[in-house]
């Protein structure tokens, strides 16, 4: 009885070995699949939000040139944030540059004229929260940058009061 079981076990082991050998024997013509693309950087959503903020400012700017002196520092800050985020991201984000997203042509229902300071302020407040959330769990190398971006957005909302 015991010897029978040993033989069956031995046979199973042999079979398993053969299967393993078969599996390991791949035909020469079969190409190894390309490595999967690296996952997108965790900062992609924050980058997209930064681009959206820039677009919003550019729309407000275009609609009300009289606000230029008030909005310029914020526009410059978001441009600087975009550049710094792009610098630290791996893989580098797709080369969509700020402003390449078309601003709706004037006259359309979502035209620039509809961007109010209150909307800019609300967008900054939302952006502050996302940057703060990203900062809270970011690796040490990114914490200072994300913290400054969160703080900058808070000050933008303050001056848009």
């Amino acid at each position: 009885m015991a010897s029978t079981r040993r033989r069956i076990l031995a046979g199973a082991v042999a079979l398993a070995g053969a299967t393993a050998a078969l599996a390991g024997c791949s035909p020469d013509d079969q190409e190894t699949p390309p490595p999967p693309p690296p996952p997108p950087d965790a900062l992609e959503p924050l980058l997209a939000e930064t681009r959206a903020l820039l677009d919003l400012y550019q729309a407000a700017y275009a609609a009300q040139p009289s606000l230029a002196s008030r909005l310029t520092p914020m526009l410059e800050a978001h441009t600087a944030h975009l550049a710094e985020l792009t610098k630290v991201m791996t893989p580098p984000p797709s080369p969509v540059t700020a402003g390449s997203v078309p601003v709706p042509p004037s006259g359309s229902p979502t035209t620039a004229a509809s961007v109010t300071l209150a909307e800019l302020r609300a967008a900054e407040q939302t952006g502050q929260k996302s940057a703060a959330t990203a900062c809270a769990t970011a690796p040490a190398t990114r914490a200072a940058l994300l913290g400054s971006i969160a703080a900058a957005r808070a000050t933008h909302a303050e001056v848009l009061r």
Partner: protein
Amino acid sequence: MTVPPELAAALAGEEAAIFAYAPIGVRLTGNALVTQARDAEAAHRDLRDALLTRFAELSATPSPPAAGYTLPYPLTDQATALTLAIEIEERAAAIWRAALPPTTGTDRVLALSALTDSALRATRWRIAAKVTPTTVPFPGEQL
């Protein structure tokens, strides 16, 4: 558990900010600015207390506050007082920004909240002093 030196630096920075707001407040006129200075001082006291509580949790003994502070320049009028208030908050923002990388969890949340609040106060002081621009792209970044 050891306290990151950046948090110890934050405590020293908060003590210095608390000290500076007393002479600043004396030079300000008008209820709005006096209140603004009083609120700022209270915020720095809260931060100081939060740090002391945290150090106690970590069984760490912070170095005692400096025996005396000197102002970087004499405060002769409201303008010099506002200039110093801006500088105090910019310095606090830099100290708290430096505390972000070495911390995690609730310590980092505290540092971020302190950085943000200092940046906000610096902006409000710039508005009061009519300094432009009233915001900077990277609050707390050492230039």
